């Protein structure tokens, strides 16, 4: 039997922001590790975007060598404590696991987390470990999300002198501002950032590359290559009447206030958030679920409004299950058409239209089509719009010669090179919004290409 991870009970966890998953105990980890049949030709490794040697790290857990197991993970994955928590394993390594044929794949995610948390429990002496690479080639990495962290770490491991720029005051990108505490504790993110620093990466927050400094200025300062990993940070709105009413937040604003600025601990933390009793979250992805679950934890009545059906929600299955247990309502096949407000400019409700599924669209999912005359009102004092994020336009717009696509993503070739010499890009800024692990995969491959490029300059 596949060993499941213990979780906080739904009744308990909706009252706090602590991590939902409690992780494997030593016994559970051992039991699960023993289930791995150590395939000669492991398919799981092929399912991993960064090709972690999964059987090897599991074998080390089985042998009781947790520290060595972590070292094995870190050969390929610089952020295992994060991936163990937020990777969609069911679509990657676990999907390919041979035991999945019987529907019982190894719980690789939980084992990865178990190995990685070893370091959180027993922090290594980082200062002693910290390396400096003053002789290395100067490389700038822009954006400290999953792609940037990974690329910076790999370049530093090679021996380059890397500075990682972040516009916010805390590094981590979406890992810090977006994914909530109860899915990814900020202590874990901070720990992984410390690890990256220990590799010799200089982390520079409060730096909006594009404005100050510009990409040109980085080159003038002696930087030989720039990796742009600025992510998909531009919130999409619905573009329907009334969207600028008070208490209608973008998912980014809602999550940034709560996660990054800790508004859930207001007024101890000074950033406020104004949330009424009834909250409507619009969208069906992981971000929408994160918003809904945050609102639940603040004691609100939450309804998730999605224009397709549950089967078509892009969110992870596990998160949908978790969310359902936590007890908020779903309004499927529902498309908002208008927001109404009171005379003071605060939202009162969302006028919606009922949808039905029609022919498949470009994504292969059946396209929702409105049912004429089926309009109805969902009353809500707060609305969170979580219908997607676009690539952040600031750096491309302020960097002359950097070509972008019609979708606003930066154009790159198969080697992550942009239209500007020495400028590389990867992660959501080149693909549009995607997962943490695919951004990490891009960061990893780009690091190799950037290394090749700077060597070619000598």
């Amino acid at each position, binding site marked *: 039997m596949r060993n499941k991870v213990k979780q906080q009970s739904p009744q308990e966890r909706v009252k706090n922001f602590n991590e939902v998953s409690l992780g494997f105990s030593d016994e559970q980890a051992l039991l699960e590790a023993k289930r791995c049949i150590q395939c000669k030709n492991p398919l799981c490794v092929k399912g991993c975007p960064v090709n972690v040697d999964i059987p090897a790290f599991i074998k080390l857990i089985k042998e009781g060598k947790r520290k060595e197991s972590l070292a094995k993970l870190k050969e390929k994955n610089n952020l295992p404590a994060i991936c163990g928590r937020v990777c969609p394993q069911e679509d990657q390594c676990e999907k390919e696991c041979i035991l999945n044929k019987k529907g019982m794949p190894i719980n690789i995610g939980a084992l990865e987390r178990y190995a990685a948390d070893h370091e959180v429990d027993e922090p290594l002496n980082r200062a002693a470990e910290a390396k400096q690479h003053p002789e290395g080639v100067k490389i700038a990495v822009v954006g400290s999300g999953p792609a940037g962290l990974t690329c910076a770490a790999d370049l530093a491991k090679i021996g380059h002198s890397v500075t990682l720029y972040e*516009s916010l005051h805390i590094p981590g990108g979406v890992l810090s*501002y977006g994914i909530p505490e109860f899915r990814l504790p900020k202590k874990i993110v901070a720990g992984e950032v410390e690890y990256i620093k220990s590799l010799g990466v200089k982390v520079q927050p*409060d730096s909006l590359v594009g404005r100050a400094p510009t990409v040109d200025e980085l080159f003038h300062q002696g930087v030989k290559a720039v990796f742009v990993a600025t992510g998909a940070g*531009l919130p999409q709105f619905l573009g329907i009447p009334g969207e600028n009413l008070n208490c209608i937040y973008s998912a980014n604003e809602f999550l940034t206030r709560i996660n990054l600025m800790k508004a859930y601990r*207001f007024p101890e933390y*000074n950033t406020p958030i104004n949330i009424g009793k009834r909250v409507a979250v619009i969208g069906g992805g992981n971000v929408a679920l994160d918003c809904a679950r945050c609102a639940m934890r603040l004691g609100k009545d939450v309804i998730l409004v999605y224009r397709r059906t549950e089967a078509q929600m892009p969110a992870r299955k596990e998160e949908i299950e978790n969310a359902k247990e936590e007890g908020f309502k779903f309004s499927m096949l529902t498309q908002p058409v208008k927001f109404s407000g009171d005379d*003071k400019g605060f939202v009162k409700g969302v006028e919606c239209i009922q949808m039905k599924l029609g022919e498949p669209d470009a994504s292969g999912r059946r396209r929702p089509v409105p049912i004429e005359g089926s309009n109805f009102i969902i009353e809500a004092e707060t609305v969170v719009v979580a219908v997607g994020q676009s690539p952040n336009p600031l750096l491309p717009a302020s960097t002359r010669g950097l070509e972008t696509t019609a979708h606003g993503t930066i154009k790159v070739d198969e080697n992550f090179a942009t239209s500007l010499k020495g400028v590389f890009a990867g992660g959501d800024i080149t693909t549009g919004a995607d997962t943490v692990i695919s951004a990490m995969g891009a960061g990893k491959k780009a690091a190799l290409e950037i290394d090749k490029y700077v060597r070619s300059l000598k």
Partner: protein
Amino acid sequence: MIAGKANAGQFVVLVIDEKAERIPLTLSDWNKDTGSITLIFQAVGQTTRKLSQLKKGGSILHILGPLGHPTAAESTGTVVTVGGGVGIAEVWPVSRRFKEAGNKVIGIIGARSKDLLILEQEMRASCDELYVVTDDGSYGEKGFVTDALKKVLDSEALRNIHSQVRVYAIGPVPMMKAVSEFTRLLKIRTTVSLNPIMVDATGMCGACRCTVAGKTKFACVDGPDFDGHEVDFAELSKRLTLFKEQEQECATK
């Protein structure tokens, strides 16, 4: 770094300590040689109160900038710069900038009363003419900045050349609205600098969205300067009340 890049009309975001908000403040002055910047604020919120209590040599945990587009200050002839209340802190660098660009600059500054009036000498030094008003008449002319603006625009010198005049206004929303409504009648090009609520101030959260010419704009990256005749001021006023309750909760702590 910030001083080296600063331009009139731009702002910074700062986080004073670990538990503080990110708040935007306008750059009033800067020295590219020493790297110093000058921020002028009214101690009304938690961060600004903490800022006002900083002693010499004290520090701010995080600061990011310069942000926003600089004021487009080409040479057009005559510019009337209007500052209300703490908005004078921004109209000062903008006035300097218009002057440097070769314009005749007429300044108008106003405050509720004499003790709230700031930067009079600095503005006098930066403008060709300066008019000062207070709501209660405790200093300068009694009245609003719009009263002074009417007089200036109706003066012998400007009356017949409105097409060559430009107005720049920064201050409380009702003031910018009143200025814009008046200049609209005279068809005088008017720029205002908007001050909505912000969080990241880099275009990521959309807290600062405003309606300009019927379209949603992010003041942090699309502005903060916009055409005063196109701004939906009523919406901006309402959006500024979003955290009124929470602000009061903090004020009573």
